[in-house]
């Protein structure tokens, strides 16, 4: 069962294909983000160029799904029909110390009314939507 009800917009890399390696990685339960071969730094979110050295030579590498909560939100008011009558739910902004402190967004699994401690360690949880067309996988987080 998914954390949020079915019916929300499904993620897609889009026509330019910039984030395709990320979404393909999630299907295999791997967290794959950009790494600049020009200056050896992690980069996230995806972009065509390294913002540090302006190299276009960006690699995609797997990072460990471990982070800390940087910020979060507990959402009560539904703004999409799929969320009517559902809620609250929590979204977290997670910093990855193992990848240059880049940040990722996902839902925080567990009691939606739980206390969310900023700075607490979390791990990635892969949520597969195999019957969606096309299938996709979301990346959530769980306190550890």
């Amino acid at each position, binding site marked *: 069962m998914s954390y949020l009800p079915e019916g929300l917009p499904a*993620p897609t890399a889009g026509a330019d294909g910039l*984030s395709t390696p990320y979404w393909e990685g999630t299907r295999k339960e791997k967290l794959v983000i950009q790494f600049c071969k020009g200056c050896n730094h992690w980069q*996230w979110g*995806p972009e065509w160029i390294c913002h540090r050295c302006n190299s276009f030579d960006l690699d995609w590498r797997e990072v460990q799904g471990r982070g800390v909560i940087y910020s979060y*939100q507990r959402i009560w008011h539904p*703004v*999409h029909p799929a969320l009517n009558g559902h809620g609250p739910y929590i979204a977290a*902004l997670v910093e990855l110390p193992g990848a240059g402190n880049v*940040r990722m967004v996902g839902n925080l699994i567990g009691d939606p009314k739980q206390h969310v401690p900023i700075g607490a360690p979390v791990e990635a949880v892969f949520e597969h939507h195999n019957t969606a067309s096309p299938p*996709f996988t979301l990346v959530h987080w769980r306190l550890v």
Partner: protein
Amino acid sequence: MTERTLRGKVVIAGIGETEYYKHGQSPDSEFKLALKAILAAAKDAGIDPKDIDGFASYSNDRNDPSRLAAALGTKQLRFSNMQWGGGGGGVAAAVGNAAAAVTSGMANCVVAFRALAQGQFARFGRGTGAPLASGDDAFTIPYGIMSPAQKFVMKVVRFMHDHGVKQDTLRAISMASYHHAQNNPRAVMYGRPLDEAKYDASRWIVEPFHLFDCCLENDGAAAVIIMPADRAKDLPHKASYLMGVAGGSDHRCAAPIHNAPNYASSHFATVAPNLYEMAKMGPKDIGVVQCYENFTGGVLMSLVEHGFCKPDEANDLLRLENLLAPNGKMPLNTSGGNLAECYMHGLELVNEAVRQIRGVSVNQAPRNDTVIVIGGPMVTPVSSLILGSEAAL
């Protein structure tokens, strides 16, 4: 080399607005609302609307200058300008762009305007109806982050966490706007006061934003007319000079998926110093503050980044009595602003700033020679401006 500045170079010659409506309740189309606001501003300035030769707006306003010029019978169109990106963060920049055109001689009389019929077009506070989310949206929308409140609130949560800011400050910011709206017959929330109990009991939109921490969704239009400062003596009203204006955002503010280095920010970290440098003044010189409330948390961070209080002083300084005209230390949003006058995308704040300079606000502040207008915080680019009376020059 002569100094490159807009300080004192232009005046806001006229202000205008339509009646303000709850979204969907305007009897007029958005384009007609734009026309009405522009005509009202021209009348206020005592000029022939056909002499307007430039149009400046922001947030991809749908009311195209060429169509406006044709509809109004504009004699010649010389300046057609859109501030790129940033939604309501472009409000002060649109005035600045108009001022730059007038100062440089590209145009003589430019109207900065915004028309918005959220009833005729999409409401800002609703999510997407599309089946797919692509690009950067793919990393947030499937997790239920789609409305402006949801996009911005994690900045506020982190800021309040870092500095121990209490919910009371957000409540005071909200109540100041509602308080001032009770004296303002133009205000959508006129006759609908807000007290602490009503705020506390109101439903959460997204923590820490209650319903009353969030802007309205409205239909209406507003406009201001910018002319060269040497025309001030011919104008029917006390002159409001542009003292300074700045727009933009700091390093990698728009880094995708919430990766801005300076995250817990309203995005004025570099913009506010640029503004004060041009205006040749600082926060202590400002008498009245009009600060765009998309959400009260954005006001909190904007006030900090414009130097009106240190982060750790917010709980002490941002109390209701300090924010009210006429007697507060820092009268804030004296028309009711986006929360309670009208969500006219911040242009109503420019009109109110001019009213304060003229001394005709319904919540007149005694110290009114300088007024700051801070545009939509937390977006990028943002912008802010300072108006001053002749005495402030």
